[in-house]
């Protein structure tokens, strides 16, 4: 990868960080708010992200065939490992009060507890990369599946329906 792409990525990162900081976006706080019945703020934020990103990613495929919808990460063990990993991740973010974006944001805001959190990723990642992955590799049975591969409905229809539903939901939340 050329060095200039790395630099451009870093510059995009600065933009992401600025927006995330000004928005106060953190899904760990969002979970907390959601469980205490005050989840409207994070739902509104999620809906805005979902609507813009869904349309953008879908349209990208028409602009450039190399782009379009792509699988994120890997589906491991028919989803079993995804659910397990999600549960561990969910427990972790609620324990320290910061998701990935929230952790990076808090470091930028000067909260050094989250630097400790970031450094603590290392033993967890090392455990999986160097110990668990070699053992579980055969059980992972990796697949990459998009929703349109599972149900016989075209991606634009699915995205269209979800975006419309999201817009209606967002408007109803903003009216309250």
């Amino acid at each position, binding site marked *: 990868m050329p060095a200039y792409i790395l630099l451009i990525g870093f510059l995009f990162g600065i933009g992401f960080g600025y927006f995330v900081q000004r928005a106060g976006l953190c899904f760990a706080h969002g979970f907390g708010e959601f469980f205490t019945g005050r989840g409207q703020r994070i739902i509104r934020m999620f809906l805005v992200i979902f609507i813009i990103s869904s349309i953008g990613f879908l349209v990208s495929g028409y602009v450039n065939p190399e782009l379009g919808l792509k699988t994120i*990460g890997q589906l491991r063990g028919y989803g079993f490992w995804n659910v397990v990993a999600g549960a561990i991740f*969910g427990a972790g973010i609620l324990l320290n009060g910061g998701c990935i974006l929230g952790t990076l944001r808090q470091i930028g805001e000067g909260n050094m507890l989250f630097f400790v959190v970031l450094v603590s990723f290392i033993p967890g990642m090392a455990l999986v990369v160097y110990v668990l992955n070699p053992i579980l590799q055969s059980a992972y049975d990796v697949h990459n599946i998009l*929703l349109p591969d599972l149900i016989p409905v075209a991606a634009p229809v699915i995205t269209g329906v979800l975006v419309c539903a999201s817009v209606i939901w967002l408007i109803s939340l903003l009216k309250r």
Partner: protein
Amino acid sequence: MARKKLSHKPLFMVAGFAVLNVIMYFTIHKFWIGGSSFLPMVGKLGPNNKFLFAFLVNMGVIVGAFVGALTSKEFRFRMPRVGSIGRGILGGILIGIGITLAPGTCTTSFVIGLPMLSISSVLSITGMFVGAFIVYSMTMAKCSVKNRKGNS
């Protein structure tokens, strides 16, 4: 003045994040990712430095958050309290395990995976709700026990 007002509206700022992500996808064919981006910290740079790129994006996020906090006078240098360090370390280790056990399991599922209609993200988010709810329930139970002891 108008710019200042806009930067105080969280939904506009969240929209800015999403628009920037789409622009990044259109221009350099990459998008923000969370979990795997930290693999360079354990020596994995990924094919064609893919993870290194994502790591640098996230280092940029820290700088951007710093700029945002500084310009809005919200920057406050805080050293962690001793009592909260253990919780932070445990949480960090769990996050480290979660993000590598199934790639794509992290905040990326919400901001990229769902809009991409990725099945792995739907399952990851289901797991996140379960894990977060377990910790939330345990914390609430602990709080209510403390309160009862305090009242008696």
